[in-house]
């Protein structure tokens, strides 16, 4: 019989404060503490949380990695990173002083049991000196091949406690990629649940930490006006674009084995798609929200075997120029094979076979070296049912578009037709705009800040669940296999353009075209 951990009463003095929820102090161990993610994102995010008073007094962070650092050297290194990358930079000395007291470093390799022993001793020491009460969060900022070893050694060293048996909590955060296909994702999940329960696993997709992505749920379910139109009766089609102006930078080696579909479409884009298309959840909690997202993924129409090209286009950039700078072709990038067939652009036509979305196409595209960096969801409405004004000369009505800009310059715009002032009836499209920066001014928290805080609070609503990950792979795998077995190279497109002509043709066949985001 399982024993349920008693839940703490809320702190009454927190009522009405800006920081209404503060987690209990824990030891957060970062595996891969010498890496780029730790320096650019994780520690700066943790520092900003401390700066904003969102961390408890005893919060402890322990870096674990191969290089030999002292605690002080690690602190110096992290301070420099926070000064460079934290949202709340430059570092405030008085906040830093206290934050640094909770920063420690343990040297070791991921495969050395003795290192885990040293780590465990350090964590127990912190329980005594910093009031962390045995609570643990392990952040695996490491390539996925290390995940089995780390979780096995954590288990063997007795460093994982089971909250459902009355112990303090242990949580583990894992970074994408969650596998490279369905079998590897299943294997990763199998390994995870040998040491941790599913409730202890937090699969991070930083897109879900973005304010605008969360605002998508507020827009849809906190406003009465949108939901009645959010269906096949009023919506003609939906476009999702995740465009990057950069190439593969220093990730050429990894990217060349993955491609844009695994890197962006399988996770970020399918998250955006499921949040856009999901049914209202019964509650705003982790399981209710994720149940609805999974239903969307389960309803994705399979790719027609042998006719994948009708539904999907893959491309690869050749040399060109982006934002006025010359850009090399993909095959000329560092660590990329000169005959690589890896796609740097993907456009897919998706159908969600359910009552709400029957026959409404969702066109999704992601690409590198596109003209600009932008992530955008646009809901294109059907035209008015009766073309009253089209009968008048000189009148051209256009369908309404609700555009949700995820990044940069986050906001929402609604396009509609208006009469041009004058004696004759002429119409022109106008836009009603809401911009976060204009209305709310202050810079929103970084996605990692929100996601780290949610992990400490134990709320997994903004994290991917096992079945979400596996269902997404199950849908994409046949397309990836078809592309892999196709001897033809991806369609070329010049860097600085919106992808290959074939992507435009795919929409043109349906009488539509890509919106310029």
């Amino acid at each position, binding site marked *: 019989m399982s024993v349920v951990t008693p839940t*703490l*009463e809320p*702190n*009454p*003095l*927190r*009522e*009405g*404060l*800006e*920081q209404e929820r*503060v987690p*209990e*102090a824990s030891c957060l161990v970062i595996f891969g503490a010498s890496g780029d993610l730790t320096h650019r994102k994780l520690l700066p995010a943790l520092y900003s949380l401390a*700066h904003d*008073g969102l961390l*408890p*007094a*005893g919060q402890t962070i322990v870096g674990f990695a191969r290089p030999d650092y002292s605690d002080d050297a690690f602190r110096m290194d992290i301070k420099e990173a926070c000064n460079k990358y934290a949202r709340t930079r430059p570092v*405030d*000395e*008085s*906040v830093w*002083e*206290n934050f640094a*007291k*909770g920063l420690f470093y343990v040297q070791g390799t991921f495969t050395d049991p003795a290192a885990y022993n040293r780590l465990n001793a350090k964590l127990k020491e912190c329980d*005594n*000196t*910093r*009031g962390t*009460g045995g609570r643990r969060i392990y952040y695996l900022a490491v390539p996925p091949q290390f995940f089995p070893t780390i979780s096995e050694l954590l288990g063997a060293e007795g460093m994982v406690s089971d909250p459902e048996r009355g112990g303090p909590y242990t949580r583990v955060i894992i970074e994408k990629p969650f596998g490279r296909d369905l079998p590897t994702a299943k294997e990763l999940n199998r390994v995870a649940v040998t040491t941790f329960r599913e409730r202890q696993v937090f699969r991070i997709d930083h897109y879900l930490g973005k304010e605008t992505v969360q605002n998508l749920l507020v827009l849809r379910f906190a406003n009465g006006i949108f939901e009645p139109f959010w269906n096949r009766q009023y919506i003609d089609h939906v476009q999702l674009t995740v465009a990057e102006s950069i190439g593969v930078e220093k990730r050429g080696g990894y990217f060349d084995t993955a491609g844009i579909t695994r890197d962006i479409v399988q996770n970020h884009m399918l998250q955006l798609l499921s949040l856009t298309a999901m049914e209202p959840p019964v509650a705003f909690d982790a399981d209710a929200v994720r149940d609805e997202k999974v239903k969307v993924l389960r309803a994705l129409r399979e790719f027609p075997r042998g006719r994948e090209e009708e539904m999907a286009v893959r491309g690869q950039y050749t040399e060109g120029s982006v934002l006025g700078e010359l850009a090399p072709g993909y095959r000329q990038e560092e660590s990329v094979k000169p005959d690589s067939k890896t796609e740097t652009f993907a456009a897919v036509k998706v159908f969600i076979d359910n009552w709400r979305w029957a026959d409404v196409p969702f066109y999704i595209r992601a690409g590198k070296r596109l003209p600009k960096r932008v992530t955008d969801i646009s809901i294109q409405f059907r035209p008015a049912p009766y073309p009253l004004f089209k009968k008048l000369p000189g009148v051209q009505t256009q369908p309404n578009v609700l555009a949700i800009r995820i990044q940069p*310059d986050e906001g929402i715009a609604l396009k509609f037709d208006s009469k041009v002032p004058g004696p004759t009836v002429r119409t022109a499209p106008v836009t009603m705009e809401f*911009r976060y*920066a*204009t*209305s709310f*001014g*202050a810079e929103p928290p970084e996605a990692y800040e929100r996601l780290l805080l949610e992990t400490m609070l134990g709320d997994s609503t903004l994290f991917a669940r096992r079945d979400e990950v596996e269902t997404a792979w199950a849908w994409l795998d046949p397309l990836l296999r078809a592309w892999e077995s196709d001897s033809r190279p991806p369609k070329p497109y010049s860097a600085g353009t919106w992808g290959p002509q074939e992507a435009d043709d795919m929409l043109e066949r349906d009488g539509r075209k890509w919106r310029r985001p």
Partner: protein
Amino acid sequence: MTENLFERAAAGQVRVDYSAIERTLAEMWLADGTNDQHTVTRAALWNVVAHTETHQHHSHASDILSKAAAAVPQRTIIVRADPKAADEMSSYISANCHLGGEGKRVCSEEIAIVAGGERVRRVPPLVNALLIPDMPVAFWWVGDLPHENAQYVQTLLEPADRLIVDSVHFNDPGDLELVKRVADDSGTAPADLNWIRLEEWRTAAASVFDPPEMRDKLRSLKRVRITANVADESYFGERIESLFFASWLMAMSEAEVDCTFDLRRAENRGLVRVELELEESKATIERDQEKCVLSTTIDGHALNLPDAVTRSKARNIDELIVRVLKQPNRDRLLPKILPVALDLARQKK
């Protein structure tokens, strides 16, 4: 005139006919678009009405709210109403602009209404007509609250969602009674800047009870000792910050608490040190003026908890007002604290 109206309004006040304020504002925004460059983005999340009586208060309010508008875009209406002045009424418009994202100028409008003598009575309906529809209204009463002209105040406050006051200016408990009456009898939620000043002290005190082992100790609170710097310890308003803090602890702990206040005439006004005596432990919160932080320590047997540090927040009036306007919902706590504070004020007279 239309062509450069916007630039004139952005540079300073432009006198306008009070019966045509809205029309002139429309012309002002149109003036920006005449060259088709659309350099300016207009925004407003609130209607903020400041009520003043003197020229000095008027320019103070204008200065404060133009700074606040950079953080919370708003239509600002500043009323200077002096029944003792000569019968007259005039109005002015100006644009409050700041640089937003992507180098865009984000602007909102400020309207000033100056009324004297009998004309003061015409102010409430004029203000009412100038409010942007479907947008919340905050009313900032600059200075001491009026105990006379109830009808005038009531009419002015009718559309208000918030009443912003700063009780540091209150000269007796009657003013607090008035705020309590507004909270009890109207749909307007009071927001006291003196209460907002306590946010970081409340955060620091809350952090004492965040650790699981301290969570149930709040009910064992026995004694609170508050030390504060004030400009004049005999002035009632100067005591309210301390009173509020003690009242808040009493209300939230639901315990019989013995409160001691030590008010010292010194610079850097506000709370300096708070001691909370619990059954088996003691917590101390102390302001470190140099480091701009509040340090919290907990002492007690069987406890080994690290010190907490809370960043001190700015106490400028514009930033306090921004904090009020950034709270989307009415303050649930202040109405709970007010009666306790009034009782305590009577006891500690």
